């Protein structure tokens, strides 16, 4: 991309003291051209202190907002500080910072692309060890989204994404709440922003606990499906900050 572009890696982290420093170190090593911003989403452990020691900038939420709120804080930060690109790298070590180059290559190749999403299912090197139930769920969303956005989406739950300025400003204004990745794809489509996928590697979590356990997975499915269908009917353009389009009974 343009010489001297300002790039920010957003690392959302909630009680990730076991892995956050390693993740930051790997990003800095692989991509010295990125500033690293850890969004500490109200952790009880030493996530924030360790992140700062590891050389990251740290934004701390006073209480846990959930992954959507955490990532949105990163977008707000990027927009306000004038960053050109944002990449999201999860704090649990699932994403491979060395693959950021692959995301960038796709954006360079086609400048009309606003978001490049790392997909674990396009890769011949299928190292992603997800349980079959999780994979089935992802494929259901993939099929549904592919129909809705009229284009192939293979890994709609991947958070490993590269965003340009247009996408940053859209998501700084409005980003879905609890399980944002799937719905965000639909938002991009509605706002005529273009997304592309490239194959990347993903790993099992390095430590800490996933925000999803077995019981929550079903809830996740239902909630995201609901969000998708409501998202279809939601009015455009996006509401301003503070107005999320909740029904108001009066």
């Amino acid at each position, binding site marked *: 991309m343009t010489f001297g572009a300002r790039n920010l890696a957003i690392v959302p982290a909630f009680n990730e003291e076991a892995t956050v420093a390693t993740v930051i170190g790997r990003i800095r090593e692989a991509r010295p051209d990125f500033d690293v911003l850890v969004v500490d989403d109200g952790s009880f452990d030493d996530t924030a202190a360790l992140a700062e020691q590891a050389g990251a900038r740290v934004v*701390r939420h006073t209480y846990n907002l959930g992954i959507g709120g955490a990532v949105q804080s990163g977008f707000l930060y990027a927009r306000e500080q004038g960053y050109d690109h944002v990449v999201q790298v999860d704090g649990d070590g699932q994403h491979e910072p060395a693959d950021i180059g692959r995301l960038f290559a796709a954006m360079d190749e086609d400048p009309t692309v606003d978001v490049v999403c790392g997909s674990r299912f396009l890769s011949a090197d299928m190292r992603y060890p997800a349980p079959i139930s999780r994979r089935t769920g992802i494929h259901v969303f993939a099929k549904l989204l592919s129909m809705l956005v009229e284009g192939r989406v293979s890994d709609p739950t991947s958070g490993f994404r590269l965003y340009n300025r247009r996408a940053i400003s859209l998501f700084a204004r409005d980003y879905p709440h609890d399980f944002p990745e799937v719905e965000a794809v639909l938002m991009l489509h509605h706002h005529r922003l273009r997304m592309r996928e490239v194959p990347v590697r993903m790993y099992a979590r390095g430590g800490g606990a996933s925000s999803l356990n077995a019981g929550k997975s079903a809830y996740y499915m239902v909630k995201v499906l609901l969000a998708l269908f409501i998202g279809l009917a939601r009015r455009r353009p996006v509401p301003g900050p503070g107005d999320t389009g909740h029904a108001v009974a009066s």
Partner: protein
Amino acid sequence: MDDRIQILSIIGAAGLLLVVLELVRRRALLERYALLWLFSALGLLVFAIWRDGLVVLADAVGIASPPNALFTLAFGAILVLLLHFSAAVSRLADRSKLLTQRVALMEEQLRRLRQQPDASESDDTTEQAEELDPVSMR
């Protein structure tokens, strides 16, 4: 007809009215919500005093038994109220999210400014540009 239940109803409805007024007086209840409860309490009081009111009401909407008219009405009103509160809570959650994000961003900025005390006078964005490494990997 037994007067005791009527007296009890009147006392109950009047009590509710007084509690609401007292809460407003102590500023424990915003007027906007107080109004809802005031009307509910007033409605209850009206039907407690005006015995035939329920019969008239039931006839008007075609419900055979007056008590059922009361239950239907009360149930509907409570449903609307709850929905209203869910919406209000959602709005509050959304606003507190915005505040949390804003505070978090400001704290980060403040911390960075404090780390370089001489820079606190100058414009923050130029400060930013200087501290960044301009060399891109790409």
